[in-house]
């Protein structure tokens, strides 16, 4: 209860501070403000993917359905954050670059993450049986894991990026105004906390659902 309230207040207060107290980056003008929501969403999409893949590998090793719960819940939430990052990024791209979608390396990589989530969840929904679903989707997740470093490596080499880290971070992270940096990292922590809180809720729901199913099956067995 206390943790939840703290999280809520933390995000609320830092959102207000980020919008009113922190200055704008000159090169980005008013669009600076998307930074406090877009980058945390993008970061959580990647974090959730890593979390999901890590638990998939753990499932293949230990064969405990708790790992599968973590993997699937992280993928579902990751997809939501990933859609948020894609849409906010696309709107920002329209404002700054003049088009919603241009296959910039960042756009390509977020699209790729979106694609993995989509394929993973579509695959899950079409497999019957808890064990089999857990096993096969973990196999797929592990295979998709292999592609990630290659994509990070090849995409920037083939396409040229206009994404603004080079603009904000020329010569390291020194030139960013400290107020922007503080609000940004505070919100990054806040949204990461939000993700893990939502994740724990989802995992608990999955666990309860499985227990109900087991009870139902038992009851049906004793009635027959």
């Amino acid at each position, binding site marked *: 209860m206390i943790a939840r309230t703290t999280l809520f207040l933390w995000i609320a207060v830092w959102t207000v501070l980020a919008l009113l107290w922190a200055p704008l980056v000159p090169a980005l003008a008013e669009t600076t403000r998307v930074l406090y929501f877009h980058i945390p969403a993008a970061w959580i999409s990647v974090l959730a993917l890593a979390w999901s893949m890590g638990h998939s590998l753990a499932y293949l090793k230990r064969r405990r359905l708790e790992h599968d719960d973590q993997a699937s819940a992280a993928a579902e939430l990751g997809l939501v954050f990933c859609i948020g990052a894609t849409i906010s990024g696309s709107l920002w791209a329209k404002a700054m670059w003049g088009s919603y979608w241009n296959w910039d390396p960042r756009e390509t990589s977020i699209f790729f993450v979106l694609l993995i989530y989509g*394929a993973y969840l579509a695959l899950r929904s079409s497999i019957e049986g808890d064990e089999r679903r857990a096993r*096969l989707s973990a196999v*797929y997740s592990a295979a998709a894991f292999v592609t990630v470093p290659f994509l990070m490596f090849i995409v920037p080499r083939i396409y040229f990026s206009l994404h603004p880290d080079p603009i904000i971070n020329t010569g390291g992270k020194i030139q960013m105004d400290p107020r922007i940096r503080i609000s940004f990292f505070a919100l990054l922590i806040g949204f990461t906390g939000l993700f893990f809180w939502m994740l724990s809720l989802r995992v608990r729901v999955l666990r309860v659902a499985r227990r109900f199913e087991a009870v139902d099956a038992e009851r049906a067995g004793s009635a027959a």
Partner: protein
Amino acid sequence: MPTRESSFAAAWAILRKECRSEWRTRYGLNSALLFAVTTLTAVSFAVGRMGDRTDVLAALLWVVILFAALASLAHTFVREVEGHTLTLLRLTAAATPIAVGKLLFNLLFLGVLELVTVPLFLILMGAPPPHWGLFLGVLALGSAALATAATLVGAVIAQTRGRGALFAGVSLPLLLPLLAAAVSATRAQWSGNPVTFELRLLAAYTLALLAASLLLYDHLWED
């Protein structure tokens, strides 16, 4: 525990069995060839000859190959499930030799498919002659990566409800890096630019996928 030699023998036997059962009906190869030619015709008919646009040609070539592969490479596993022969097959060999045998078959299958599609493509699209050594190298490495990814996903997909319908979409994330590298390499060999980076990347990707596959094949079937 099977010895190393017996695993190789089993994989070899699976490959021979696949070839034989494919040769008896030729159903898979016929439909794949027909599909490839259909895609090729659609592409060629829609854009006409474009000998001077090798950048577009490189992309179209890989789109045709990708479509042909996606339409046919899950077939080896789906056939076992639909014919109810998978259980029997699994009694005769372990998971890894079965999957390796099927991977070799898919590689061969893709080779035959390209033997027909690629020359036809070059002729129909009026492509300038490629640097044969580099071109064939890119084709071989790209096909190896394609077959490796498709075999692993095909084995997973065969156990789902959607099967064929899901195969293309679920394979796509694994195929995107190879598609990007293969297209850029094909483009580079036509315009005379160096392709070593892309070739190395394709080789590394194939090896990484193969290594992951060999570790994962064991988990494909259990129940």
